[in-house]
């Protein structure tokens, strides 16, 4: 009986594997979400002070990574 031939998935070049959209998009989303929470939380003034830069980083990252391949 013949065994079905198993073919491994074609490996992506390391750079393309590193710059996949999914994980980077998740990172950018996390930045934005954390930034919005920092902006509106009522506990620590320091968190509020650093909220905008966090959101801005997330938005810039998001805008860039949406151009990455899936």
């Amino acid at each position, binding site marked *: 009986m013949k065994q079905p031939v198993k073919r491994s998935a074609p490996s992506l070049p390391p750079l393309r594997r590193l710059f996949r959209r999914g994980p980077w*998009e998740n990172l950018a*989303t996390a930045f*934005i*979400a954390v*930034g*919005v929470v920092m*902006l*509106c*939380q*009522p506990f620590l*003034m320091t968190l*509020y*002070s*650093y*909220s*905008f830069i966090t*959101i*801005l980083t*997330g*938005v810039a990252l*998001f805008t860039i990574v949406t151009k990455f391949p899936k």
Partner: protein
Amino acid sequence: MTAADEPGTLVERIAAQTPPHVAARVRGLSDRSIAWLFIAPTILLLLAINIFPLVWAIRLSFTSFMSNMPMPMRFNGIDNYIDILADEDVWQHFQATAHFVVSTIALQVVIGLGLALLINRQFRGHSFWTTVILLPMMLSPAVVGNFWTLLFQPQIGPFNYLISFFTGAPPSSFTMIGDVRLAPWTIVLVNTWMWTPYVMLICLAGLRSIPDYIYEAAEVDRASPWRQFWAITLPMVLPFLMLAVLFQAIQAFEMFDLVNLLTSGGPGSVTELVSITLKRSAFEKWETGYSSALAVILFVTVFGAANIYVKALNRVKQR
């Protein structure tokens, strides 16, 4: 062959009247160029009314410009941003805005979906009640603000009498707009009253798009109405509901007119949303540079939140 293709038709006669140098130029254009030619006026208009004010506001946010002072713009780097992000008052206004957005959205979703489920059934006077429910949404915020101010009057307003009827408290013993504890909930109540019909309308569109055979199959499988709601109705309405939440969250985050008319940010500053702070710094203190920086912060926050939301919406749609 159609009439338009026949030689000597209206189309050919009009084409023949085109001056030769214009005709030669147009004939030389590709389809893509012609498409660009057609959309160019719209793009220019968009640039003029959307992009230019945004770029100008970003530029102003790095200056100490005051629009009521006859002095040139002076670049002051990120000082305005530092001032805003070190100001405890602005921090409190962001908290008030967050309270307003979260409470309003939660109430609108629950009541809007409930109303949509009710209106989706066929009953006598269905169209009449749909119109009645949709009425608040059609009113101007100025009208809504004014008549709710009247309804909330402690002496003559019917709202206090209604509350006293149910609770037994004297009508003039509390004021909805003037009380520090009640005022934040007052603006939530009025905004919910006004915009719940909008959420209901979008949910209704979602409910109408669910095919009947899915419910019929569920009934054959003896699924309870509760189970049908959780397994069929809610997942299929969810993309619509999320869209409504996105629109309403953006609208609530930038809410100005209704709250300005109802409370003007008072009592104290408990209902002062960021948009009211923005208006005060721009048109009462005339700190144009500072208010532009605040506007940029608001814009980036809403833009970022909308990005996350659109991503979540796409995931729900793909399921």
